[in-house]
């Protein structure tokens, strides 16, 4: 046996409590800065285009992750797109059950090759389906901070 001794009473088993204190301030980066500034000031979505792979990254990257080209061509994409997947999240960040579940979607904006992950709003479980058309609902301009949360949610587009 590996040990010559073992704990034999439940009262002997103790734990030491502590944490890994991490507070972070992240810069949004070169591409992120362009993306969020444009979203904040103009309410528009920017992506970067890789001419070689014919990909439009939204949010943008300064590189194509597939071919490693430096991407410098910023293109505007639509604020509406298609729902590629969705889920209804019942637990929060603390693992506890949420009072109100949160709708989350994977949205491919028109003109983009990639999808944005965001919340869905102004909709019901029964309505949501694959391929549904959705549009971004942004915070009022004055309240935007240059964050992914400048988008409040995506809602079904009325047509």
């Amino acid at each position: 046996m590996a040990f010559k001794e073992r704990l034999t009473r439940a009262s002997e088993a103790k734990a030491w409590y502590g944490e890994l204190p991490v507070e972070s301030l992240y810069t949004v980066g070169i591409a992120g800065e362009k993306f969020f500034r444009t979203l904040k000031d103009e309410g528009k979505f920017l992506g970067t285009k890789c001419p070689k792979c014919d990909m439009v990254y939204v949010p943008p990257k300064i590189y194509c992750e597939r071919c490693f080209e430096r991407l410098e061509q910023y293109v505007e994409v639509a604020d509406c797109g298609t729902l590629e997947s969705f889920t209804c999240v019942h637990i929060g960040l603390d693992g506890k059950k949420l009072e109100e579940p949160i709708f989350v979607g994977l949205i491919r904006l028109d003109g983009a090759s990639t999808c944005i992950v965001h919340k869905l709003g102004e909709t019901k479980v029964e309505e949501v389906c694959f391929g549904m058309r959705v549009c971004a609902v942004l915070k009022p301009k004055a309240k935007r901070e240059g964050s992914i949360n400048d988008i409040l949610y995506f809602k079904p587009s009325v047509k």
Partner: protein
Amino acid sequence: MGNRVAIVGAGMTKFVRRAQETGKELCFEAAKMALESCEMTLDQIDAVALGTAPDTFDGVHMKGEYLSDGAGAFGKPYMRSYVGGGTGVFSVIQGWYHIASGIIDTCLVICEEKMSSYQPHPQGAFLTIFDHTTERPLKPNLLWIFALEMNRYMNTYGLRKEDIALVAVKNKNNALDHPAAQIASPVTVEDILKSEVLAWPVQRLDVSPVSDGAVALVLTNESIARRVTNKPVWIEGVGWALDTTYWTNRDLCYPRYVEEAARMAYKMAGITDPRHQIHIAEPYDPFDYKELHHMEGLMLCGRGEAPQLTVDGVTQRDGELPTCPSGGLLGVGNPIAAAGLMKVAELFWQLRGEAGKRQVSRKVRRGVAQAWGDLMQVGTVVVVGI
């Protein structure tokens, strides 16, 4: 030693206190520059080896995964190695065994650190390297452990601070010629001795600055190396060793783990007389005394003798054994893992005669780079030659 492995390209970002780029973007910039330096493209790379130190700096759990797209790992075999401060040099060892195994022909080696993300000060992240139960409740900081080691070192050999400070003077001045350096102002021994006492005997200018940055190398097997460059730099020996966790049970005056790692690397490289068979050294210098400590561990001089070599000018660029001609961590900056890899990049440039103003006077054919890490515990050593 298995298949021969060569370094054929190198790239890096500037080392800065706070970078605007994300960690991914820093990785990309260094990798792109390394690939372009040897006119290779990502599709010619078989595997990617990443090195980066604690996740707490960047503030991302599974940091290796997070950085992978910037590191060019899309659709490729990719792994992150990690030995604390020793990571930078270890990542080259990681690249080496990828290729020496015969399984991988070309490997991109990248190291990144974005320490500035940690708030309020990156040093705070080091609290969590101590034992959670028996040490952390004492609220230690990283300086403690260096100060304790430095004091033990000085005490054992009766060393003077002014002699140790010469290392910082040399390295910070060497860094004036490094285009990527974070600190570019000359210092004197007086400046160092007058600088703020942080944790005696450690003063402000004895310490390397915290930095953001990334460095990348391209490694290939022999046949590819000969096709992409006429000046491959060969990895002749590698070694690493990790000592016991119980750092307070060891004599801190001598880094035995560095010696073990060096012995392994020298054996592989066929080196029997390191002092004469090695022409240039890049030992790890996060603190000035550390360079001395590590020169002794690397057996480039006897125990307690490194300060005298420094006083005698042997370790200057025009000396007999140029040491940290790059400017080291003290001068160029210390984005932990990236700083270690920068040392190997420096040897690559020096051995190829491409270091410009930093080029050492003597002809150099073989060099050693070394990094240190963990709780005064790990040594990683790479010997390269042409």
